[in-house]
C-alpha cells in the first residue's frame, strides 16, 4: 500500500529537492503558509530556486528566510509590499522578479494543474504585464494570452488532512493552496490536524487526495499575524471599523 504520511518535513521532502528547481508555496502574506516545509527547505540548503508565491513572507519568517539565506534566484509573485529585503534585492537587481497580477497568477496556476497551456484575460491589457504577449480581440474587447504555470514541487498548508491526502482548509488560509496542490509535479502538504481516512466529510473536502503525494502533521505552527488589527470591547458591533 502506498503510504502518503511521512514523519516530518525533512522526510517528506527527501528526494524531491534539487538546485535550480521551481517551487510553488501556498499562502497569502503569512496566512496559510507551509511554515514547517519552508523551514525544512532552509535546512536542506537547496539553491537557485524559482519560487512561485503570491508574496515572499516577511523579514525573518515564511519565505523570507529563504531570501535571507540566498536560496532564491527568482520570484514569481504579485506583491512585495511587506518585505523590505524582497524590495531591496529586487531594486538592486540581486533577485529576479516576475510580477503577475494576483488573479492572473492564481489562474495561471489553476490552468497549469488543469492541463490548460494558455488562456485569455482582460487583466493587464495596456500595462507592462502584457508587453511581449499576444493580444487578441474577442467580441470587441482586448485580452492578453497568459500561460499555465507548473512547478517541480508544490508545498501546501491545510488545516485538516487525512491519510489519503484529502484536505480541508480553514477560512482565508485557503487562498493559493488548492490550485498549487494541483500544479506541482510533486505535492507535499503540512496540516494542523492529520486524521484517519473517513474522518472528513466527502462533501467538505477542498483538495482531493489525488493531488497529494506526501503529507505530514506539522511539528509546530507559529502562525504569525502580520497586522493584528482589533477593536476595543466597547465598540458597537456591526459595520464600524472594518
Amino acid at each position, binding site marked *: 500500500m502506498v503510504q502518503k504520511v511521512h514523519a516530518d518535513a525533512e522526510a517528506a521532502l527527501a528526494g524531491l529537492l534539487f538546485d535550480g528547481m521551481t517551487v510553488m508555496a501556498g499562502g*497569502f*502574506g*503569512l*496566512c*496559510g503558509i507551509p511554515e514547517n516545509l519552508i523551514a525544512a527547505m532552509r535546512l536542506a540548503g537547496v539553491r537557485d530556486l524559482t519560487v512561485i508565491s503570491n508574496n515572499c513572507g516577511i523579514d525573518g519568517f515564511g519565505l523570507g528566510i529563504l531570501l535571507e539565506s540566498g536560496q532564491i534566484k527568482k520570484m514569481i*509573485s*504579485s*506583491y*512585495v*509590499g511587506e518585505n523590505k529585503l524582497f*524590495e531591496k534585492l*529586487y*531594486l538592486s537587481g540581486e533577485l529576479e522578479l516576475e510580477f503577475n*497580477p*494576483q*488573479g*492572473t*497568477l*492564481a*489562474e495561471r*496556476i489553476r490552468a497549469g494543474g488543469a492541463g490548460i497551456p494558455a488562456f485569455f*484575460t*482582460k*487583466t*493587464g*491589457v*495596456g*500595462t*507592462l*504585464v502584457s508587453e511581449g504577449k499576444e493580444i487578441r480581440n474577442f467580441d470587441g474587447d482586448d485580452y492578453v494570452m497568459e500561460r499555465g504555470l507548473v512547478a517541480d514541487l508544490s508545498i501546501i498548508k491545510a*488545516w485538516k488532512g487525512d491519510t489519503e491526502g484529502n484536505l480541508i*482548509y*480553514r*477560512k*482565508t*488560509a*485557503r*487562498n*493559493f*493552496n*488548492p*490550485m498549487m496542490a494541483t500544479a506541482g509535479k510533486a505535492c507535499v502538504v503540512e496540516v494542523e490536524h492529520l486524521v484517519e481516512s473517513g474522518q472528513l466529510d466527502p462533501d467538505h473536502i*477542498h483538495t482531493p487526495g489525488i493531488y497529494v503525494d506526501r503529507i505530514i502533521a506539522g511539528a509546530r505552527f507559529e*502562525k*504569525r*499575524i*502580520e*497586522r*493584528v*488589527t*482589533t*477593536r*476595543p*470591547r466597547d*465598540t458597537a458591533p*456591526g*459595520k*464600524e*471599523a*472594518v
Partner: protein
Amino acid sequence: MAWTREDMAARAALELQDGFYVNLGIGIPTLVANYIPDGMSVTLQSENGMLGMGPFPFEGEADADLINAGKQTITELAQSSYFSSSDSFAMIRGGHINLSILGGMQVAENGDLANWMVPGKMVKGMGGAMDLVAGVRRVVVVMDHCEKTGAPKVLKRCNLPLTGAGVVDLLITDLGVFEIDRKVGGMRLTALATGVSLDEITAKTEAEFVVAL
C-alpha cells in the same frame, strides 16, 4: 479647505447600492465601510478569498487564519463564505463584483490608472489591483488630488506604469469629484469639495475636464 479622508470615504459611499457586492482597497477605501447607510445591505469581498467581511475582531480574538487583503485581522458574518484565490479572481474577472473602490497614484483623463510602482524607487506589486480594475463593473478611485510636492496627479496621461488602461469610472479626490467616460475618454467635474473653488481645482489639475457642477 478641502475634504478630509473621512469626507472622501463618505462621498465614495454614495456609490453604494442595496444588494451590492463591493471590493474595498487599502487606505481611504477601507473607511467607506463606515458609511454604509443603515438598512442597506452591502457585502464586502476580500480578494484573498472571502465574501462577507466583518469588522476587526475584539482584542484577544484575532485569528491568524482570518485576514483581509491588507493582511489585517478581520471577522466573519452570518452570510460569509470562503474560497480559493482562483475562485476569488474568477468572481472578480467574471464581472460579478458590482463596485471596486481603490486608491491611486495617478489618474488620467482617459481613465488610465497607475497605483502599483515607481520605477527604480518604490515597488509594491500590483497585487489584485489589475484584476479588480479590469474585471469589476464600476471602478472608483479615491486619492489626494496632488502629490505632497504639489505636483498634479490628475493628468492628461499617466507617466507611471499603468495598473489599467481606460478603467476608472469615477475619481474622488480631496478637491472634488470627476466622472470619466472610459470608452470615449473625457472627464467631467461633477462636485467641488467644501471650500474649494473651480479656479483652485483647475489650477491643480493637468487633465482637461468639462465642468458639470
